[in-house]
């Protein structure tokens, strides 16, 4: 009971949208699993250029997302809460963070066979040892945060 009343008192939690995010997350986990993009085997097939499948999936995802974003901008659509939809631009800077950070992530992607979303879906899908990879990823993120002032960006 205490938890329930605390939950209803918190303004951010009162937004009905939280359930929407849960459902979208569930849908995301299902798509990742049913399409096998979370499979270490599929990631190997992709990085060895031995099948078009992953490229077709990522390519059609990018095309769909690009067309949707263009349409949203063209129609000046508003969000369900009535705000103008805007995507904040990423700062290019020297570009080092994207090249170096991206390459470091790529190394990890091939070893674990999973990007962050799939890591969580895989734990649900019955590969519990990947919870260790998630903890290790949290450590990696934390070390980055700590080193951040000393790293080139």
């Amino acid at each position, binding site marked *: 009971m205490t938890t329930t009343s605390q939950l209803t008192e918190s303004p951010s939690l009162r937004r009905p949208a939280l359930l929407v995010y849960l459902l979208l997350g569930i849908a995301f986990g299902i798509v990742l699993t049913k399409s096998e993009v*979370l*499979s270490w085997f599929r990631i190997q097939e992709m990085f060895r250029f031995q099948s078009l499948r992953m490229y077709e999936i990522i390519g059609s995802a990018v095309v769909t997302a690009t067309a949707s974003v263009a349409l949203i901008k063209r129609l000046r659509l508003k969000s369900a809460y009535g705000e103008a939809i805007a995507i904040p631009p990423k700062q290019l800077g020297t570009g080092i963070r994207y090249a170096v950070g*991206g390459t470091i992530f790529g190394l990890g992607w091939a*070893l674990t066979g999973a990007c962050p979303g799939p890591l969580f879906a895989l734990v649900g899908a019955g590969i519990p040892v990947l919870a260790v990879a998630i903890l290790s990823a949290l450590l990696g993120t934390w070390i980055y945060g*700590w080193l951040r002032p000393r790293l080139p960006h």
Partner: protein
Amino acid sequence: MSAWGSGLWPWYVAGPLLGLFVPALLIVDNKLFGFSSNLRHLCSALVPGEVEFFRYDWRKTGLWNLVFMSGTLIGGFLATHGGTPHDVAISMQTRVSLAKLGIHDFTGIAPRELFTWHALLTLRGFVCVVVGGFLVGFGTAYAGGCTSGHAISGLADLQPPSLIAVIGFFAGGVAATYFVLPLLF
């Protein structure tokens, strides 16, 4: 047989569905589809320390995404328990390449030779799980995004930084595949 139970979804269903998470989250409440921010939010919620990168209101910025993340785990569970389990039908070429490497068990979604509690105590299991996980966390935080945030959301908004990041993803992935994995077997 229903689409649910019939196993693998074709690329032209899976790809567009993945792309639709970008407009869906924008329309729901102006949220940008990006999964790796959750690693930062979790650090901020659990062990912010004195690190400036983690000193922000994670509930305000990231609660929606952490809820999405919990859903992803549940979705993985539902999808594997809703149909008949089947092996990942990778190409014969990949089977041959992986067999040369030392992977012989092709059952399940990830090789048991690398991703079991027992394998964690071997060099290759440790490197793939612990070192790999660390690089995923460090790299996505440094690059400011992962496959969802850069490859899908960033490219969809035609942002040059995301293109650099995606080229890095593939450079790193190919390097690990050809130069790191062979050292582990």
